[in-house]
């Protein structure tokens, strides 16, 4: 065995973590990140004075938030809260329905037509790029203020998310299984139903739950632009300077969100 002291073997090889290209790329990323931060810090309009007495203002706010006006729950919150849940649920369901074909078109192992793929990609990207509040603004303008606009906003915003993840799940399906089914001479539709579907089903439910959980949060603010739900109550309370009602609304949202998360975790444990 070679000795550790043998210089000929040892010295000409060095521990090198990255190739020069990798090293350069990493430095480039770092440089970009740092310069972005520096430029932003310098350019963004921030009045530092406002930071100094922020604690004071927070205290003023807390004093006005506390104690919450719990009586407001029955009057103005409860119904809106239920409506919020409906918006989130219906929006998610609608999104699932809309996302299914898009996901099928976007999965490379299922669709080979490049035109369909590009189209699917475009739908996915635009759905996600446009915020749910912006979708809400659009649908409020089209259908007028109310729940319908909220449901559509949630659905259109979620299509991209659900479609993308579902498409990825489809692409990750075990191709061995698919191959085995095509080796039996099964038609394509049967392969979809019996090969892909059982494989992506848990992923689909999990995506749906995940998105529903997000949508509960999102639908809570749609009311700020008139698309129904608890956000309307929040907006009213804010516009009338009722911070004790605001806190009631916030507490309700918090409770619902936490419950939603618990429910989702529980269901997920069971189905996976």
């Amino acid at each position: 065995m070679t000795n550790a002291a043998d210089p000929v073997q040892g010295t000409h090889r060095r521990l090198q973590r990255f190739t020069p290209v990798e090293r350069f790329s990493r430095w480039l990323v770092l440089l970009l990140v740092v310069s972005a931060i520096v430029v932003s810090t310098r350019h963004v309009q921030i009045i530092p004075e406002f930071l100094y007495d922020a604690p004071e203002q927070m205290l003023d706010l807390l004093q006005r938030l506390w104690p919450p006006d719990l009586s407001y729950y029955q009057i103005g919150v409860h119904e809106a809260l239920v409506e919020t849940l409906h918006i989130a649920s219906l929006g998610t369901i609608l999104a699932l329905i809309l996302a299914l074909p898009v996901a099928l078109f976007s999965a490379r192992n299922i669709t080979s037509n490049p035109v369909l793929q590009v189209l699917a990609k475009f739908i996915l990207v635009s759905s996600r790029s446009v915020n749910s509040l912006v979708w809400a603004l659009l649908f409020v303008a089209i259908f007028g203020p109310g729940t319908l606009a909220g449901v559509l906003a949630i659905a259109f915003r979620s299509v991209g998310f659900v479609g993308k993840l579902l498409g990825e799940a489809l692409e990750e399906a075990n191709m061995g299984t698919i191959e085995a089914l095509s080796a039996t001479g099964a038609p394509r539709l049967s392969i979809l139903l019996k090969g892909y579907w059982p494989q992506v089903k848990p992923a689909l439910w999990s995506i749906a739950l995940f998105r529903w959980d997000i949508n509960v949060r999102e639908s809570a603010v749609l009311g700020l632009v008139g698309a129904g739900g608890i956000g309307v109550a929040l907006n009213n309370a804010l516009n009338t300077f009722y911070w004790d009602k605001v806190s009631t609304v916030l507490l309700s949202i918090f409770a619902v969100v936490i419950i939603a998360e618990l429910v989702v975790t529980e269901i997920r444990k069971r189905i996976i």
Partner: protein
Amino acid sequence: DDCQSRGSLDVIYCDADGDLVADAPTDPSKWRDPSTLVFTYTPVEDPAVYRDAFKPFQDYLTEKTGKKVIYYTVQSNAAEIEAMRSGRLHVAGFSTGPTGFAVNLAGAVPLAVKGTEQEFQGYNLIVIVKKDSPFQTLADLKGKKVAHTSPSSNSGNLAPRALFPDQGLVPGDDYEVLYSGKHDQSVLGVNSGDYDAAPVASDVFKRMAERGVVNADDFRIIYTSPKFPTSSFAYAHDLHPDLVAKIREAFRDFRFPPEMQNTFGGADRFFPVTYKEDWGVIRQIAKSIGEEYDRKGLDDMAKKEAEKAAKKKAN
């Protein structure tokens, strides 16, 4: 608490001199002398347009006070009022109705309204319906879908409540009040048939028609109110008196350049006003329906609404 008289003002303010607006703090250490002045205009209309429109005044204010002046755009009356209360906003134009809340809840001190040498600018409350609708008078609106704008609005909510009962229509009793959020949303809602009618500010409606957003010929105006002052300009009560003097001076001496006059319908200067004098009519409106421009006022209104809702449910 050593405050003698406070009127409708919030507990953190004091009105010893009886001018109905918050006095500067007696303790000079509480006077603010910010390095940067934040200025904004009421959010009813295009904030970007107004930011550009107010640019000459912003420069003038900088010149007069020697401070950097920033124009921030706001999206709601409430946010604007809250900002002044938190000391995040120093000089601002408030909408007519919200001015009362700004004074009482945020310690705003109104000092001017856009106008000419002779008078300040005004606007009316109008009630619009679709031209092809059967409604001809306010009384026809019983049981219909009528949109108010927001609770603190004068023309969009408070004035209707004060003025409609004389015309045989009691908001909240004869129809359920729906809040649209903004004047323009009310107009749009009527246009799309979501609402049967809406009380809105005449100037907003006019501008929307001019912009081609809606066609004025599609509507019928079935009610027009007396004139109200337009937005007030106010400063925060706790600014340093020297700074206040400079701000007042700026408002007094500034003359609108032609472009600004265009934007503001011919107004060429800030016409000096006081809250006590010139907002009397607005306060009167509120008072006549038993509302006060303070938390309690809104409180009462909310309670009444709730009772009505409860009654309705019980039926």
